[in-house]
């Protein structure tokens, strides 16, 4: 192992150029510009903004059936249902008629009123997830909670109906 003296002796072998380079490196790294952190502008949009594609009649019927029955319709049934929608001029009316026909069929999976009222917040979140594929905002949750609590006639079926009729449900 070399003594400290011998290491000192070896220093002159670096030469003046070596020392200059070392100093330059030292100063160059020590002059790094201080980082500045900024915020990008982000536009705040209402919920559901990213949904800008309107569902076709068949997409609407297929998703509605899946949401209500947790079960898929056959391609043939979807084709026939599409024809029925085409045969009615007011598409909003056509959708109402189709939803109310679905609601009249056995096999619709809807929580009962007592379950909904036992945990309204959970019901609202589950309904938004099921139909609109997103979380409700606090404002939406509050509005629906107040609305459900204020009116004993508001049943899960009526709420499902309103979600299936909403404009947002028409888009994906």
């Amino acid at each position: 192992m070399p003594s400290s003296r011998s290491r000192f002796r070896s220093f002159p072998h670096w030469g003046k150029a070596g020392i200059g380079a070392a100093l330059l490196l030292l100063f160059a790294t020590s002059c790094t510009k201080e980082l500045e952190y900024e915020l990008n502008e982000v536009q705040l949009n209402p919920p559901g903004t990213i949904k800008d594609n309107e569902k076709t009649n068949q997409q609407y019927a297929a998703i509605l059936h899946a949401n209500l029955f947790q079960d898929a319709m056959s391609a043939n049934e979807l084709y026939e249902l599409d024809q029925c929608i085409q045969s009615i001029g007011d598409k909003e009316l056509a959708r109402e008629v189709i939803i109310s026909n679905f609601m009249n069929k056995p096999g619709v999976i809807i929580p009962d009123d007592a379950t909904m009222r036992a945990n309204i917040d959970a019901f609202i979140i589950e309904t938004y997830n099921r139909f609109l594929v997103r979380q409700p905002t606090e404002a939406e949750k509050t509005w629906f909670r107040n609305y459900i609590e204020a009116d004993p006639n508001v049943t899960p079926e009526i709420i499902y109906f309103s979600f299936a009729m909403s404009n947002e449900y028409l888009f994906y």
Partner: protein
Amino acid sequence: MDRRKFIKRAGAAAAGAFVMPYILPSGRLFAASGGGGLSQHVVLVMFAGGVRQQESIGLRYLADAQTEVHEGNILYNMLNGAAPTQKIVYGTGLGGINPIPGLLGQSLESQGTLFAEMRAVNAGHYGGLNSLLQGNQAMTQGLTSKPLNPTIFEYLRRHAGVQASKTWFVGNTIGNSVPLLNYSVHPDYGAPYGANFFAPNITFGPLGDQYLSDAKVYHPQDQLAPMYEMKAFLDNSFDNVGNVATGIGNTADEKQDIKAFMVEMFSKTQNGTIAHPPVHDNGDAQTIGYACEVMKWFKPTLTVVNMSSVDGCHGNFTGYLASMHRADHSVGHLWNYIQTQIPEMAGNTTIIVAPECGRNDQPNAIRDENDWYGYDHSDANALRVFGMMAGAGVPSNLRIGSEGNPVGIATDVVPTIAELLGIKSEVMSAGFLNPGTLSLFDRM
């Protein structure tokens, strides 16, 4: 401001308020010109899939189309003239040998005004239907595109403030883009001013019975009112992204009424009590039956009915004659039904009958069971059409135009309806009509 200036400006402002048009929350635009119409209800029959002048107005039966000499009138509910006496193939029974008896004591030609030689602006079905409803050609549109310019439904709803349930389009099919004709994509008109539409063969046929007939009935106040309120809340959250409105503006009450009508139609269809014409062995006649039911229930300001069975002429001339005979029978039934079964419309309704296009002068190569040639629609003869109207506001027993002196174009139907219903100036000044288009009343 001195007293004189104040009085002058106040007076000008008051005068402006009277003269300027204004819009009520209902959407009605009260134009400064204003004015009432000649009729309270109009029924337009789009007749009936391409009709040759020779077999209709010309009363030529087989004489101009086949190597036969038999002439005669097979549209005797609509036109004056004796029926053929030989080679009868258009009626009922085996071989169609029994002509369907006339339903009207007096033909529509005698009751009203016949424009015997008009010009279509398009030799195709969709273009022709567009011309009757838009008052314009559809040259820039595809077959699966909605009209670009406003339809007569939209003019009526926007400028006369007519409710959605008072404008009806009864189609004979969902094919041929027929369901697209109830409103246009024009940004100033469009869906909010559209007409209600049914294609009864689907809506109330086997498919409708399977998917639409078992609708749950909700209580209007206890159930539907909160449902609409929650929907409105959800729509408000989604409103800022410019979503497309797909409803035509039926109110909650109107929707309830239409649903009740549908329930009634499913019941009547099942019981066989739809107001069909006496002979209703084809789609057109059945469509007319449902149109009668629509009119009886809603008493629409404007009803448009489409028929198209005549188009079988491409490959079956015998079937063409039979379909045309049934179309005439259906029109006769429609008019008779209005006068005898709908008191609210009897005496104050005008009927307009016009083909969307004609058919060719020369046949194609397809022969039917009688060895008769079929006819397509693509040449100049396919632009030869007629138009007739009768009822409220229409002079009777008047015939205008002839083969050598055509008067009127198919697009005239739009301003004619507009004049009958009191919105002529608004339609004419909107700037969307085919050049040269006039109300038929202006051509008399």
